[in-house]
């Protein structure tokens, strides 16, 4: 920086540098010190010395404060300290950032952490620079087998690395087809059952009812709704540090060309659902929209968004591609709960995580999203249907929950960020998604490599 006074005598400077050198070395040593116990515990990871009555520190985002409150009410004897943080929302990476700093300091880790990012197990399950992995292994006795087996099929995939479970899923974000039932009937259209029918419907809507839309492709999760549901192998995580990236397959191309066609005719605009532009142009104009389960509350039944009145919003199961027997779908988010492998009170931490993911007091009574724990999900759906808001049964949401295609994985880097920075500006600038597929592949491969992945 400018302004540093340089007229100091050289002898004094030498001694100052020496003092600083020592201070730096001490700091470095302090940074390298600490760490957990090296003994291997009964749950499959090195445990800290347990103190059964110690307070557990729980990190939650603002929405999950209700979960901590429900636990405190049901377990007044367990001492917990609740810390609110951003939940790593919007890709802030706060969770990872803070844990890496605690790793360097050798202490400070919370006992339980909620994260709104699905790919945290990819790093939390791995040793960091020789330091013990943050996440505790849950399926080696820490969480009962029966509890684990009651989670919806495939819902623990983001938590599973190399065959071991490192987190419990809070809620699911399976993609379904939301639609406006009275509007569809008024236009005289049948509900599509395949993506080909969906595209044909888009072409009809463009001609007969211009201005109406059947989806959007302007959000970072566009690949997760459309490419994932088409079994595009752009993100197939085959090992803790290996990924297969193929964007030139028929599966990728069919989804890309469908999006190109619908984007050109204006029925699937490149506009994010969370922008003022979307509300201004498309309020009352959404005929249908493939998207995650949470669109119901965040977009349709939200006075600050589309605010669709009761009795209009219908939901259909994910669409198939022609010639394929069973539909698969993508997933856009859903939170996860981690237990720290450094916790001094694993029992209380496990009690907490099991409660917030499975107990009705939170998952059915207070949780805003579709519970990952299947018995809670059934009751949650029944409660939603009882509200009489929806125009159809919500059964397709349940069907879609176990249909998330397993060929799209959860690496440490964000596919959403890659799509947003590579594809969105290109598409907005007039290029076609089909033409951009090789660019997308290169971008994913580059990102994977700098994150230490071997690309197949």
């Amino acid at each position, binding site marked *: *920086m*400018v302004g*540093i006074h340089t*007229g100091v005598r050289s002898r004094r400077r030498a001694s100052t540098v020496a003092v*600083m*050198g020592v*201070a*730096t070395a001490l*700091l*470095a040593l302090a940074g*390298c010190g600490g760490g957990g116990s090296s003994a291997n515990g009964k749950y499959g990871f090195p445990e800290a010395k347990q103190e059964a009555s110690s307070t557990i520190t729980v990190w939650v985002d603002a929405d999950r404060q209700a979960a901590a409150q429900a636990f405190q009410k049901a377990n007044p004897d367990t001492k917990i300290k609740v810390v609110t943080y951003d939940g790593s929302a*919007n*890709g*802030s*990476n706060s969770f*990872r*950032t803070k844990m*890496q700093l605690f790793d*360097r300091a050798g202490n400070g880790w919370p006992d339980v952490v909620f994260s709104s990012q699905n790919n945290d197990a990819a*790093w939390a399950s791995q040793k*960091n*620079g*020789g330091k013990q992995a943050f996440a505790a292994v849950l399926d080696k006795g820490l969480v009962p087998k029966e509890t684990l087996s009651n989670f919806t099929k495939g819902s623990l995939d983001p938590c599973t690395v190399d065959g071991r479970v490192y987190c419990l899923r809070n809620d699911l974000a399976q993609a379904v087809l939301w639609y406006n039932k009275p509007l569809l009937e008024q236009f005289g259209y049948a509900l599509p059952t395949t993506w080909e029918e969906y595209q044909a419907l888009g072409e009809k809507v463009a001609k007969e009812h211009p201005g109406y839309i059947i989806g959007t492709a*302007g*959000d*970072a999760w566009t690949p997760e709704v459309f490419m994932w549901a088409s079994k595009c192998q752009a993100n197939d995580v085959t090992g803790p540090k290996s990924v297969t990236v193929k964007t030139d397959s028929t599966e990728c191309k069919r989804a890309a060309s469908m999006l190109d066609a619908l984007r050109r005719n204006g029925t699937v605009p*490149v*506009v*994010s659902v*969370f*922008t*003022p*532009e979307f509300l*201004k142009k498309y309020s009352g104009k959404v005929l249908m929209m493939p998207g995650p389960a949470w669109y119901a509350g965040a977009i349709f039944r939200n006075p600050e968004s589309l605010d669709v009145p009761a009795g209009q919003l219908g939901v259909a199961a994910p669409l198939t591609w022609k010639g394929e027997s069973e539909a698969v779908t993508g997933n856009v988010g859903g939170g996860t709960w981690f237990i720290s492998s450094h916790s001094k009170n694993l029992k209380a931490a496990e009690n907490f995580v099991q409660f917030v993911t499975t107990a009705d007091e939170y998952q059915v009574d207070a949780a805003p999203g579709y519970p990952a724990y299947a018995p809670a999900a059934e009751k949650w759906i029944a409660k939603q249907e009882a509200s009489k808001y929806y125009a159809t049964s919500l059964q397709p949401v349940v069907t879609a929950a176990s249909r998330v295609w397993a060929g799209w994985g959860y690496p*440490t*880097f*964000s596919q*959403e*960020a890659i799509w*947003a*920075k590579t594809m*969105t*500006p290109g598409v*907005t*600038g007039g290029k076609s998604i089909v033409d951009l597929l090789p660019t997308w592949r290169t971008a994913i491969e*580059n990102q994977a490599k*700098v*994150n*230490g992945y071997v690309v197949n």
Partner: protein
Amino acid sequence: MTLAPSSDQLTVDASRGRRSRRGGGKPAGRASARSPIGYVFVSPYALLTIAFGIVPSLYAVLLAFTNADGGFAGFDNFTKVIDDFRFWPAVFHVTIYLVIWLLGLVVFVVGLALMVHAIGVRWVSTTLRFVYYLPGALAGASSILLWLFVLDPTASPVSGLLSAMGFDSFVQVIQPGNLPAIFAIIAFWTGAGGWIIIMYGALNNISTEVIEAARIDGANAVQIALRIQLPMLRKWVAYMGVMSLAAGTQLFVEPQLLSQASNAVVPNDYSLNQLAYQYAFQQNDFNGAAAISLILLVVALLLSWVFVTRGGLFEKE
């Protein structure tokens, strides 16, 4: 982000300059060496600078030349970050931004300061200086949040202007090609006001006799500005260049917030500082992050040296 010194600082600097001139070449530090109270005043600054400036910098040097296990790594970290596919685009982005911003800053700040200085009506001049300074009051992240609205054609108070320029959506506005100009405009808007006040102060320092003499010799306002005022402002322009360069190479808040607000359409590795942040906190590679920081430091020091020597910042008159 933009570091504009206050007018108080200007006064102090100016008075220091006068004192050293009067001192007839005696070392400026002599007087303070005799009075211990000087050390008392300086010590908090010195201690904080050592704790939060020098020690972390030395720690960064240590990290840059070691690997994750603490072993000596030579220049491995530097070659690794330079080979990274994100490095050169980030260098390019920051360079383009700096060129646009620094040129804009020098031309407009000096131009506006000369203009305001030339205005004879006192209240007009005072009002204009206040208006120029006002945007700077909304500093840092909050000003960028404001700009998020200004740049979105559907919410912007200047949506007509954006539409006239062919922008109908936020994503169109924040296309990669537009970003250096956008960041330069944001930085100018928040930082230029302070500099205009400083240039105004510097213009006030030019002796009225010199201006008067030029006027008697027949120089008009433009000639006075170009031949008298501009050359005499050289040091201050260089000072502004150095300070702005240091701040500009550290471009971080604007792209980072815009990245989050645009759901990553503006990449989170747009600038070198962001890339260092990605290395440290996304890839858990503090050594790589330190290497990028050192590269930035060296480049900023070299460029500052050019400004200092060309601008004659430390020359005595």
